């Protein structure tokens, strides 16, 4: 299996006064294409920091990161914000604990939101309908977010993350706001996306049942990889 993400000695330090807090401490690992990677660990262990760095939403203090073989961060490489944006556009889809749907846009419009900023992203109705059918929200396409359940809103957020055909889906506590039934729906959905569409999933969760879907695991404690 080819490696899609390669991290070496990733370190992220936050400063609180004179004190240095290691959110990530020399994390070295790699993620293969088509894997589901569950990132687990106690609160404050650095899970969100790790996926933010992997998803190019944050810069590491030191270390190196390669995505699809391209050097993103290293001592010698410092990509501009515009270049990072392009990488985010082309490689990643993001799903967060909060759904961040725009309340005045319909389900369809929320899903198509990335295409507003990416003119090159040609989304035909067929592709859009396929995504909505897969996520079982096609009947709701003209509804506003306020008319949806929590599970449906999260599925809309997933659909929005998929509209640019990402190679990697980063899901940070995607079931954090959902009850167990809805959580199971999202779990099945992530498995389905991985199996049927080959999307690599990086999943941050506290939920052990959800973490089980991973075929690879990263466990963090105080910014360090357990056993690393």
């Amino acid at each position: 299996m080819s490696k899609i993400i390669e991290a070496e000695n990733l370190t992220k330090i936050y400063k609180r006064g004179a004190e240095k807090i290691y959110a990530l401490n020399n994390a070295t690992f790699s993620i293969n294409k088509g894997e589901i990677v569950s990132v687990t660990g106690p609160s404050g262990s650095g899970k969100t920091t790790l996926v933010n760095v992997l998803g190019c939403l944050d810069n590491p203090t030191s270390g190196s990161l390669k995505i699809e073989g391209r050097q993103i961060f290293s001592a010698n490489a410092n990509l501009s914000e515009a270049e990072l944006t392009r990488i985010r556009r082309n490689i990643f889809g993001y799903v967060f604990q909060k759904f961040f749907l725009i309340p005045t846009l319909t389900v369809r419009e929320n899903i198509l939101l990335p295409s507003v900023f990416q003119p090159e992203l040609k989304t035909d109705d067929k592709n859009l309908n396929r995504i909505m059918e897969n996520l079982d929200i096609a009947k709701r396409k003209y509804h506003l977010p306020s008319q949806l359940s929590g599970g449906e809103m999260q599925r809309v957020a997933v659909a929005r993350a998929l509209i640019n055909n990402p190679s990697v889906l980063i899901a940070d506590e995607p079931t954090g706001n959902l009850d167990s039934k809805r959580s199971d729906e999202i779990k099945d959905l992530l498995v389905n996306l991985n199996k049927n569409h080959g999307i690599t999933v990086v999943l941050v969760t506290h939920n052990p049942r959800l973490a089980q879907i991973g075929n690879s695991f990263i466990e963090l404690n105080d910014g360090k990889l357990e056993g690393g």
Partner: protein
Amino acid sequence: MNIFQLAYKNLLRRKLRTCFTVAGITLSTWVLVTLLGFNKGYENSLNNDIDGMGFQIVLTAKGCPYEAATLMLKGGTGLRYMPQDIVQNVDNAKEVLQTTQMLMHAEFDPDKGENGGTAVYMGIDPLTYPLMKPYLKFKQGQWFDNDNSADEIVLGYEAAELEQREIGDLMLLPGSDREYKVVGILNRSGTQDDGMIFLPLKSVQETFDKRGLITMLGIQLTREADAAAFEEELYKLPDVQVVSMAQVKNTIMSLVSSAKVIVFAIAFIAFLIAMSGVLNTVLMSVFERFQEIGILKSMGALPKDIFKMILTETILLCAGGGLCGILLAYAFSGISEAAIRYFLPFAPAGNIIAIDVKIIILSFFIITLTGIIGGIYPAFKAANIRPLDSIRSDSV
């Protein structure tokens, strides 16, 4: 979906706030369009009134020049008289093309309206006055016989409507038992002549016991005449006031321009308030959407996309308010005009608020530009939101 539609839908989130902001811009635009319309309309109407006089110089009895100006344009009170034979001194000058004598008389008429009112009669020379005012056309009838003492009356358009008279009606002048026959009713000219009751000069002199007296002498100059030099010559005549039309115009415009400065200052302040309203509204909406803007950036929105989106929201607010303000200014220009007339010391006949396409385009441009200036800071602020900061603010 495009950025324009997205910006429009963003504004719908806080409908009440959007409405209040648009209302503020609407009011500012209304004031601006009305003021610009007034600026143009007043000067046009004044020029029209003055050109409509038919003569370039007026000779009146010595007195206050403002009174003289009011007298000519409005038919003022406190009339002064000069001897009719002064005409001979003027008629012979080589600069003069022709002259016309006028005697204006104001008399209380107990039959006017419910409680009576002052009627203004204008005695004119039937041989010269119509020649100087060729634009006066008749709705019905014609000027008097050439007899300068005929018992005939010509009514201006508005005077005929007010008096409810028609051709052939007989009118009694207050304080006199002499009957005058209405022989002509003028079309609307948009000048002060619309409100006049014209009689032959000699008739007015006899009826109101002003024999040998006139209030004004209108002088039309030849093309080649040096008006300024001729005015100096006229000043040598005893006890006369020389008023040139250019002077009247300048006097009135200077009176009005000081009022204009104050009103434009108020309009400018209204604009500053509108701009700060726009800035406040858009800035508040940027702060409220801090996380969301960060998420948009994580989806691939570049800083320039966010800048464009916020600026589009601002422009939509201003364009909406601007259009409403222009429509209101146009629809209520009659009411605005009545209000301005009430407060102004002198307002010429005709439309003193003239809103045209140029004014509409200029106002819309100013409003939109104001919006763009007011929206730059919030748009810049939004464009620089880091996706991570917004995400972290919720899910640390």
